[in-house]
């Protein structure tokens, strides 16, 4: 800051702290709700301090969910988190794998239909799932991939963004490095494996962080193709817990599940902040 006025600095900090608190407030309320019994929770007003039922609520959420009684099958958050994890890892890994080799082909080879391939990949940018819900569902159904991990993952792994990012990364690799590798007798695959891949390590890691979050947070797609409770992901399960018609929803279990659904991606962002920011910036360029 150019001015040196202490009160201004204090005011700035106050504003920022209020901002942080407002941003964090919903999470706090959710956490509080996940630590009370339903009986305490529905008293008006809702408690503002954490209660004593945290362990039991979370245990129930992880192991059994709402149980048979509430109409949904007894699939706990544990199983659903596992499904989410498989989906998130599959999407992140799959996108990176097929994008990096596609970018390698486009940058380091000249071949017929190269531009056609480039534009085909580019077009995927303009076709989010939301604009082709029914026909895509039909393709997946015809391929027998409903309620499978393959069905959750594969249709989402084409990625123009990741391909373009790797293209940028490869374009920045000096030509002489590829020439030196050729003189050293390395063929294209060897060069890819020994030189390009190690050089792209941090880019891969940054992209992985972003894509993991993207994959974990998928909503529409799992909603469409999973009907088997064993295959439901945690993010879409919460809504099912709350849609109980006229019955009183089991808010405390739903909120414990919500906390669990948020935890992995939030931890990833907090602990891998540098990679996360790098990934965000790179995928937008």
């Amino acid at each position, binding site marked *: 800051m150019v001015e040196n006025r202490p009160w201004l600095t204090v005011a700035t900090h106050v504003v920022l702290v209020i901002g942080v608190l407002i941003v964090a407030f919903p999470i706090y309320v959710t956490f509080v709700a996940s630590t009370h019994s339903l009986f305490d929770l529905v008293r008006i007003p809702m408690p503002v301090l954490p209660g004593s039922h945290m362990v039991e609520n979370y245990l129930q959420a992880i192991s059994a969910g709402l149980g048979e009684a509430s109409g949904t099958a007894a699939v706990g958050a544990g199983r659903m988190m596992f499904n989410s994890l498989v989906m998130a890892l599959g999407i992140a890994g799959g996108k990176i794998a097929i994008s990096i080799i596609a970018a390698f082909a486009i940058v380091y080879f000249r071949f017929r239909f190269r531009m056609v391939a480039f534009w085909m990949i580019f077009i995927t940018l303009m076709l989010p799932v939301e604009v082709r819900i029914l026909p895509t569902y039909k393709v997946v159904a015809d391929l027998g991939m409903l309620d499978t991990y393959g069905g959750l993952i594969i249709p989402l792994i084409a990625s123009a963004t990741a391909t373009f990012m790797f293209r940028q990364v490869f374009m920045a690799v000096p030509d*002489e490095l590829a*020439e030196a590798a050729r003189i050293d*007798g*390395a063929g294209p695959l060897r060069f890819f494996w020994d030189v390009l891949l*190690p050089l792209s390590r941090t880019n891969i890691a940054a992209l992985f962080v972003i894509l993991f979050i993207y994959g974990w947070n998928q909503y529409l797609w799992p909603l469409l193709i999973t009907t088997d409770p064993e295959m439901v992901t945690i993010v879409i399960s919460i809504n099912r817990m709350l849609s109980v018609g006229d019955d009183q929803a089991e808010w405390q279990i739903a909120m414990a599940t919500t906390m669990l659904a948020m935890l992995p991606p939030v931890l990833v962002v907090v602990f891998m902040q540098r990679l996360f920011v790098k990934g965000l910036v790179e995928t937008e360029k």
Partner: protein
Amino acid sequence: MAGINLRGVVKAYGKTQVIHGVDCTIADGEFLVIVGPSGCGKSTLLRMIAGLEIITDGEISIGDRVVNDLEPAERDIAMVFQNYALYPHMTVYNNMAYGLKIRGLAKADIDTRVRKAAEILALDDDLLRRTPRQLSGGQRQRVAMGRAIVRQPSAFLFDEPLSNLDAKLRVQMRLEIKKLQQNLGITSVYVTHDQVEAMTLGHRLMVLNGGVVEQIGAPIELYEHPATLFVAGFIGSPAMNLLPARIGDGGDRVELSGGDSLALPPGRFAAHAGQTVTAGLRPEHFEIVTDDQSVARLAVDVVEQLGADTLVHGHFGNDRGSLTVRLNGTQNLQARQVLPMSVRPELIHLFDADSGRRLES
């Protein structure tokens, strides 16, 4: 070990031809420097020898094999790049070992070769464990050389390997490369735009201009008998003065455009009497004279005292074209002074004004 043979080598990108048929035989163990201004095609020619550019026409052979269709790795060459092209994520040791690993050499053999190369280049164990990022410019340069040496190739190819170094280091590394080449006796082709580097390193020089070979020869030969105006202007520092002139009717004098004239070796240019030419006078060949038989009066514009010698910039008579003269030692000279100058007849170069080719008797 092998010589390299270029026969009618042509490079074209689509319809634009950039190398117009180069012929050259490089003997086994010879150090050939390809020199020329930027864009003359010298790097392209080197990269064609390396196999990094496709040969449009003609033939390149290394040893007794025609290599036109061989991959770079199969040509038994090693290359040192301008930016070194070291693999940034590998240690120095692995940078040198990488090509050998791909060739499938045994671990022990690789280790022996890398250690030996490291010893030649004075790279200690600590350096071998570092990555290129942690090295100075000179050290990177050495590693790039090391990567070439371990391959024990038939030929070294250098693509302006010193141009990324500062002036002092460049002189030092130049000397090291020369010694190394002498000791290993491996055929080398070296590309540079720096004529001093070219003169000091090469057994022979190839002067390339616009994709055409102007002249191939030993450094001194190029200096003493430049075949073309281009070579005359390119080799030597400060550059040769090139002045519009005419050979006198008797064929024994060259008349400079300023009005003065200098004596030529008697009889040698008799056949060219009256011809319009370009006269080439090296700055270091001028001397101040007292007789008036062969003299050109230099009007001094600027004097630069360098200690060991003195550079005088001036012009002849009413000719405004500037020229440079180098005199030994310190000279007590002032601007606007007029100096009687001469060049010994046998040191005067004459070029056809139209073709730019050297006039021989």
